[in-house]
């Protein structure tokens, strides 16, 4: 768990603080997304957690331990760190890159080698092929995978990620986001994730912290923020299509009807069970249809999702919080 208490940063020669009395709690094993317009202090906040930026005031507590005055080098070895430009070491092989933290903390060679292969496999890269390659021989997406593998290699309880998928094309970005979500399901990490992309925040975050001018404007689950923006700024920031964005938080599996097997309402096309309702709506509209068949990975029919159902869902959830 990470707790920030009145965290403040005033850069020398600046009148207004970059981060101003920020208090925030990220429960263990959850992903907290820091989001806001440029200059809102999100990256500064992230870098104060691993003390790449030294706080002017306030406390940082990680896993119950106050780390505000701790030796930053020791602290950083317990936190994975991924940045947008990845920063792989060009003169080291992929294996050597991934082995960075295990080597720093002095693991035996055999354990490091095994860990490297485990990490490569985790991020979907074949160790036999990629272990001995160099960063410049990889594609952008592969480099970012290695960046994530390198950050995870020391098995840190905390991951700090600064726009990790920001510099990647949209298709690869979507794939990497899904892969990372899958990884997080397998290995619990407390993640602080900086982005300026609302859709990414909604997709990746268990909680979203919206920052503006160094202050916390709203902190809540994606659904809370979309359903009840704290003020006009948040409302504008998350966009006028928040009803649609909320549909992206629900998968078709959660809402599909399974009682229509006997008389399916003329299913026209199918959609995988882990697709979002937003995607289902888009598909229905595109096909000018009424419903979709929901199928599993093998293509077996699981149920149906209808336009009517989606409309009811939107209406029923318009004010979901009592």
């Amino acid at each position, binding site marked *: 768990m990470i707790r920030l208490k009145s965290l403040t940063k005033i850069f020398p020669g600046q009148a207004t603080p970059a981060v101003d009395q920020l208090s925030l709690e990220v429960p263990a094993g959850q992903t907290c997304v820091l989001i806001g317009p440029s200059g809102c202090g999100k990256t500064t906040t992230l870098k104060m957690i*691993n003390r*790449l930026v030294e706080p002017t005031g306030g406390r940082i507590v990680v896993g119950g331990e106050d780390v505000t005055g701790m030796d930053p*080098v*020791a*602290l*950083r*070895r317990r936190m994975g*760190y991924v*940045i947008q*430009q*990845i*920063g*792989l*070491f*060009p*003169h*080291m*092989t992929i294996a050597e890159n991934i082995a*960075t*933290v295990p080597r*720093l903390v002095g693991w035996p060679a055999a354990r490091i080698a095994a860990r490297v292969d485990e990490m490569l496999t985790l991020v979907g890269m074949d160790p036999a092929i990629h272990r001995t390659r*160099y*960063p*410049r*021989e990889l594609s952008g997406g592969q480099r970012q995978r290695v*960046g994530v593998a*390198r*950050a995870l290699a*020391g098995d840190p309880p905390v991951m*700090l990620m600064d726009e990790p998928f920001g510099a990647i094309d949209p298709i690869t970005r979507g794939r990497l986001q899904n892969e990372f979500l899958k990884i997080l399901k397998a290995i619990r990490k407390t993640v602080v994730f900086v982005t300026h992309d609302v859709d990414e925040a909604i997709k990746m975050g268990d909680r979203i912290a919206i920052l503006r001018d160094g202050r916390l404007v709203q902190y809540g689950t994606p659904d809370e923020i979309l359903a009840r923006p704290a003020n006009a700024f948040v409302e504008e920031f998350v966009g006028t299509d928040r009803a649609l964005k909320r549909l992206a938080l629900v998968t078709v599996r959660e809402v599909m009807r399974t009682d229509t097997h006997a008389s399916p309402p003329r299913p026209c096309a199918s959609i995988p069970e882990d697709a979002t309702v937003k995607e289902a709506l888009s598909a229905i509209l595109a096909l000018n249809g009424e419903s979709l068949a929901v199928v599993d990975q093998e293509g077996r029919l699981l149920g149906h999702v209808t336009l009517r159902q989606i409309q009811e869902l939107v209406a029923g959830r318009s004010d979901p919080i009592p």
Partner: protein
Amino acid sequence: MIQAAWAYLLSHPKLFRDALVTHLTLSGSGLAIAAILAVPLGILLSQSPRAALLAINAANIGRTVPSLAVLAIMLPVLGTGFLPSLVALTLLAIPPILINAYVGIRQVDPDAVESAVGMGMTRLQVMAKIELPVALPVISAGVRTAAVQVVAGATLAAFIGGGGLGDFITSGIALMQLPLLLLGAVPIALLAIGTELLFHRLERALTPRGMRSGSS
């Protein structure tokens, strides 16, 4: 004429050998001293942009001073002989090495440095494991430039009594003996080319595999 030069060489083998040894000793020690001083200084300067601005500009000005002028300046200060020649050659070699050491460290990808620090490397570890290996090709390119300059520049040591192959050239001019002049000029040209090739190989050997162009 070449034959005459060759005949002279065969009749005075010791004279030639001594001149060659002096030439190589002068260049070699000048380069070594310059590298020992300038590489660490350049690395140190890369850590302090303000001091670097001053030192690099000074080095650049130093670079524009002709080799002969450097030698001439040494004359009233240190007199003639081997030592003033060595000092002058060292001064000649420092600017390219200093500038490349500084630039080499500065051009290391700042994102790689940030992730190294962010993963818990100490300042010294970042220098030893990331910045130095990545900067090594640029640093050695500076040493190569300096080496060629020094080998060629050592010719001028003859003017202040430093000895070396330049002696044949000055004597050749003074005595209007072209063969004698060639006995100095040809080996110096070959030495300069040889130095360039040797240091080029060294530079490639020092380039980490992942950063070599043309290999994958």
